[in-house]
Structure formats: structure tokens, C-alpha cells
């Protein structure tokens, strides 16, 4: 397998009224051909901003301060807008969280689906429409040709997400980035969408980056997982290693098995209280220390780097924590719930 996407030291911040918000802070990861990478973390920890930075689809207040985004060796951050448009949709497809608002209500499905095919593939309108009908059938919408004439409001949420998937896959991209594509859908529909993407992936060999809050989805679809917190990757591991042997306290917390300061186990992280900080400066402390039951003095004065974990069963298992949680008891002076 060869590396398809190689992201190095990506840093993105937002200009706000009183300074900056540091949303993505030196994120590095790779994606291999045909691989599925899951990105997990709570709301606001920088998952979306990281992915939008890859193809520079950021809001005006955001700026990419540093980094490289190498797609097959070519740095996307150096491309001009014209070249970048060919990458968007052509090489990197994206689907988003809210299918209800992701389609233009004024244009029928056929015209919307045809646009990227005409633009990226140089198809004629009739070719593009014929292809769109096939694509609709491919994502499980029967009678595709008739449905091309319909408008988005005539489709259910799940159907619209299928249309979005068909559109993002229409130009056969090398990478599909799915940003919480099932969050807004019913549970049964969620499972169908996951299965659909898996089937399409297995058929086309597209590499997938799947963003989610939901670790149960991860187990079913991902080869590897990145855990993000406060704009940092705090743990990275093959999916089995992550579930069997999580090393970062935050990952453990996401799995709902973090010991609380009171010593009970099985408390969910969210019940410990607090949320990811909006960083106004690059921290010289572990950004998780305010919620971490293992936190000790060093955590408040030094930010740990992402490094290979001790006794790693896999060379790709890295975590950013000063503590080996297998060996250490919960610190009584932890800041966790008390702050």
C-alpha cells in the first residue's frame, strides 16, 4: 500500500474579535490508498476544520498558518484556486452532516448531479444525466431516471444523503471525506448509509475519511482511527488496538470507561463535565488536563507530543499523554471534576 494523502503539521486558526481561536494545531496524519480512517472526538475539537483545511473550504475568518497537504506528493496548499477546484470533487469528494440542507432547493436533482460531471469530466448534458441516473441506482435509489426530474424537497433525509454520496462519488475521487454523514439521520437509516459507503468503498477502492462522534460506527467501518481533542490528535491507532488497548485518557473517556475521581468506573466522559476548550493561544499544558483524572503537575506546564506508546502492539499506535494509564492510579490531586 502506498500513501495517498500525507498531512503534515497542519495548523488552522480563526480570527475572532479578541485575537485568535486555535482550531487545528499541528495535525499530522496519513491516509493510504483504499484505507478507511475514522476521526473521532467531541463537538468542537477540530474535526471539520481539519478536513475543510485540506481543500481550503474554510470560512473567511479562518487561515491556514502552517503545514502541508500532500495528495500523491502534490501540496494542495500551494495550488491556485483553479487547480484546487479540479481537486475538489475530482480527487477529493466530501459529504456533510446535514443532507436536508446540502442540496439546492431550486434545481432538480438531475441538473445538480450533472454539474460536476460536466465540469470535471467534460461530459455533455445528456451523458451527464444518463450517468447520474446510473449513479442514483447505484446508491440505492430505484427508478433513477424519473427521479432526476424531482426536486430535493421530494426526497427524504436518507435519500438526500444517498444523492449527496452519489454526487461526491460521481467523478471517482481518490478520497471521500464524510463529515458526520449520519448524525442527522434516524438510527436505521444511519446503518443503511454506513453499509452503502462500505459497499461503494469496496467496489471502487476509494479511501475514506469518516468523521464521527460515535465510536460504535468506527468499529464497523474503519481500518485506523484518529482521536482529536482541542485541535490536536491525541491518539492514533489501528482500530483493533484502539478498542482493545486505548492509551489516552480521553479515548478511554470516549469509550465510557474512564475511572472518575471518586473511583467509580464506567462513568461517561461527558458526565465528568466540561467540554473541549477553545484555545486562545497555543497551550503550554495538556489541553485535557482540566478534565483528566490522571492529571499531575507536569500536565499543567508541558503539552505532551504524539509519540509511539510503550509496548505498542502496532507501530502505528501513538498517543499524546505523559502517563502510561495502565500503570498509574487516578491522581487524587486531579483537576477533573473539581474545576
Amino acid at each position, binding site marked *: 500500500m502506498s500513501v495517498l494523502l500525507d498531512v503534515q503539521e497542519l495548523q488552522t486558526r480563526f480570527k475572532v474579535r479578541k485575537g485568535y481561536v486555535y482550531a487545528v494545531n499541528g495535525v499530522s496524519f496519513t491516509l493510504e490508498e483504499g484505507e478507511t480512517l475514522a476521526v473521532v472526538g467531541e463537538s468542537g475539537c477540530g474535526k471539520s476544520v481539519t478536513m475543510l483545511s485540506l*481543500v481550503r*473550504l474554510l*470560512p*473567511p475568518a479562518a487561515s491556514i498558518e502552517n503545514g502541508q497537504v500532500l495528495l500523491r506528493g502534490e501540496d494542495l496548499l500551494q495550488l491556485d484556486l483553479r487547480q*484546487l*477546484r*479540479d*481537486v*475538489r*470533487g*475530482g480527487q477529493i*469528494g*466530501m459529504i*456533510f452532516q*446535514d443532507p436536508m*440542507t*446540502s*442540496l*439546492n*432547493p*431550486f*434545481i*432538480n436533482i*438531475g*441538473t445538480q448531479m450533472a*454539474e*460536476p460531471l460536466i*465540469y*470535471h469530466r467534460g461530459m455533455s*448534458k*445528456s*451523458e451527464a*444525466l*444518463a450517468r447520474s441516473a446510473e449513479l442514483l441506482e447505484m446508491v440505492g435509489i430505484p427508478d433513477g*431516471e424519473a427521479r*432526476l*426530474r424531482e*426536486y*430535493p*424537497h*421530494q426526497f427524504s433525509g436518507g435519500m438526500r444523503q444517498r444523492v*449527496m454520496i452519489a*454526487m*461526491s462519488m460521481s467523478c471517482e475521487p481518490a478520497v471521500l471525506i464524510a463529515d458526520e454523514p449520519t448524525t442527522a439521520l434516524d438510527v436505521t437509516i444511519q446503518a443503511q448509509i454506513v453499509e452503502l459507503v462500505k459497499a461503494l468503498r469496496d467496489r471502487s477502492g476509494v479511501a475514506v475519511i469518516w468523521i464521527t462522534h460515535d465510536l460504535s460506527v468506527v468499529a464497523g467501518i474503519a481500518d485506523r482511527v484518529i482521536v482529536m481533542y482541542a485541535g490536536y490528535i491525541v491518539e492514533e491507532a489501528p482500530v483493533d488496538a484502539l478498542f482493545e488497548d486505548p492509551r489516552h485518557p480521553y479515548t478511554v473517556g470516549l469509550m465510557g470507561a474512564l475511572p472518575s475521581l471518586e473511583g467509580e468506573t464506567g462513568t461517561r466522559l461527558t458526565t465528568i463535565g466540561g467540554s473541549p476548550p477553545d484555545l486562545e493561544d497555543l497551550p503550554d499544558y495538556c489541553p485535557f488536563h482540566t478534565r483528566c483524572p490522571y492529571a499531575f503537575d507536569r500536565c499543567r506546564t508541558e503539552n505532551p507530543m504524539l509519540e509511539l506508546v510503550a509496548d505498542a502492539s502496532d507501530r502505528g499506535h501513538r498517543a499524546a499523554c505523559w502517563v502510561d494509564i495502565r500503570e498509574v492510579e487516578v491522581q487524587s490531586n486531579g483537576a477533573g471534576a473539581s474545576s
Partner: protein
Amino acid sequence: MTTQEITATSDIEIAEASRTNLWRDAVARLAANRLALVAILPIVLLFFIAAFGPYLTPYDFLAQDFTARLASPSSEHWLGTDELGRDVFSRILYGARTAVSVGLVSTAISLIVGLVMGSLAGYLGGRVDMLVVWLTDVTRSMPALLLAIVINLTLKVPLEAWMEQMYLATKNTFFRQTMWVDLVLVFGALALIQWPGYARLIRGQILSIRSRNYVLAARALGMPTGRILTRYVIPNAMGPLIVAVSAGMGGAMVLESAFSFLGVGVQLPIPSWGKMISDGLRMWQTHPHLLVGPAVMMAVITVSFAWLGDGLNDALNPRQWGG
């Protein structure tokens, strides 16, 4: 028949079907909206009268009948006559012309200014945006009528003097018609009052549509900015804009009436409803017929424009097409 021909025909069919669908649906929606339907009649009638009024009126608007001054409505003068014995019904028909030209011209001017300023603000952002927002705030903070009076008082005399000079210099009789001064002042004042509304609307639309998910999705598919503008931003901004223009037309007519009422309106030889209302108001207790006609017209037209605007918005907005 080759396969290519087959797909080509089905393509045309698809395109055709979608277009007729969209329009048929929109018309059906509009037809289903009773208020909008009711509103269409007076508006069509207004434009018809504005265009053909002079051929319909029983009397010339200046024709004076000294034997029947301040006459009550009769078979001879349907809505009676005014102080000078002029036929009120005829004058109302002529007044439609003033109302329509004021509505069309001032709306067109303010819409163009608003579109340009609003788009600049929404697209360029930063300093330009701040400047435009500040300008709109300043303009809107001034009472409309006060603004019109100030404009009239400060600009009328110099403008007339300039016209006179131009006449002396060019001997072109165009510059002798002081009615143009009135028109420029009234349209200018109306445009000045109304452009900030359009500018803020356009700016808001651009800002909100630009951050909509379907625009992000289109950008993620690599669509170029021009296409996103024409296919995504403009159609989605149309609904609110149509409502605003429709209401704005009615608003401009009312404002012009208010100007006339205060003596800073169109002083054309042609009657204006506002002028008629203000004249009629002086003796509404003794001669209510002078007030009722133009006032009712004014009210009906204003309400009609508002209802039609709402109806059009619903009809043209597929988000409200249920489902």
C-alpha cells in the same frame, strides 16, 4: 437510431419536463393563494389605467366645469368635482400614471443602487462592508419625510438655477421644463430613502446563502464561483427580493403621496393621489368625496402589492412546496 440519439432526446424531454414543472407548480401555488389572486386584479388594473387612462377618462384632467364646482357624485361626474370643477374620477385615473411612474422609476433606481452596494458589502466584506452598513444606518436613521423636505429645500433652487443657465447656454427648451426638477428631486429622494433597505436585504441574503450547506457542498464539488452565484445564490435570494420589491413599489407610491401632502412631491400638471388627498383633507367634513376616491385607491394598491409579494414568495419558493 443510435444510442446517442436516444439519450439526446430523453435529455431534452427531461429538461423540458423540469422547466414546465417548476413553472406550472409556481403558477399553481400562486393560483391557490387567494390573497395573491385578489391582489392581482387591482395591480393589473392600475397598470392598465396608467397606460391607457387618458383614453378612458370622461373628461380631461384639467377641464374645468364652472357650473359644477365641488359637485357631489352624479351620473355626470361619477365621483363629483373639485373646487375648480374638475372631474375627480378623471383625475384619479390620471393619478394612476403618476403613481406607477413613481413606483417603477424610484424602485428601479433604489434597487440598482441597493443591489450594487449590497453585493459589494456582502462579497467584499471588511472595510467596504463596514462603510456600506454605516451608510445605510446613517440614511435610515433620518426620518424619510424630513429627508425629502431637506432635499427639496436645499436642492430645488440651485437645480432650477442650473437649468436656467443651461437653457441660456444651449437654448435647448428641455431646460425650460421645471417639471424635470421636481421629478429628479422626488425620484432622488425616494431612491435615497429606499436603497438602504434593498442593500441590507441583498447583503444579508448573500451572507446567509454563502454560508448555506448547499453552497459549501457545491464548492466541495469544485463548482466555480460564477456558477455558484447564478445557480445557487441568485435564485435563492429571489424570493425575499421579490417580496421587498413588491412591497417597495407600494411603499414608494405612499411616500410620494406623503411628499405631495407636504408640498414637496411631484408638482406635475398631472394629478397625484397624494396631492388630491391633501387637498381633499382640507374639506373632508363638507365634501368627503374629494378624499374618499384617492384614499381608497391608495389603500387598495398598497395592500395589493403587499399581498402579491407574499404570494409570489410562497409560489417561487420550493422549500415551501411541502414534502
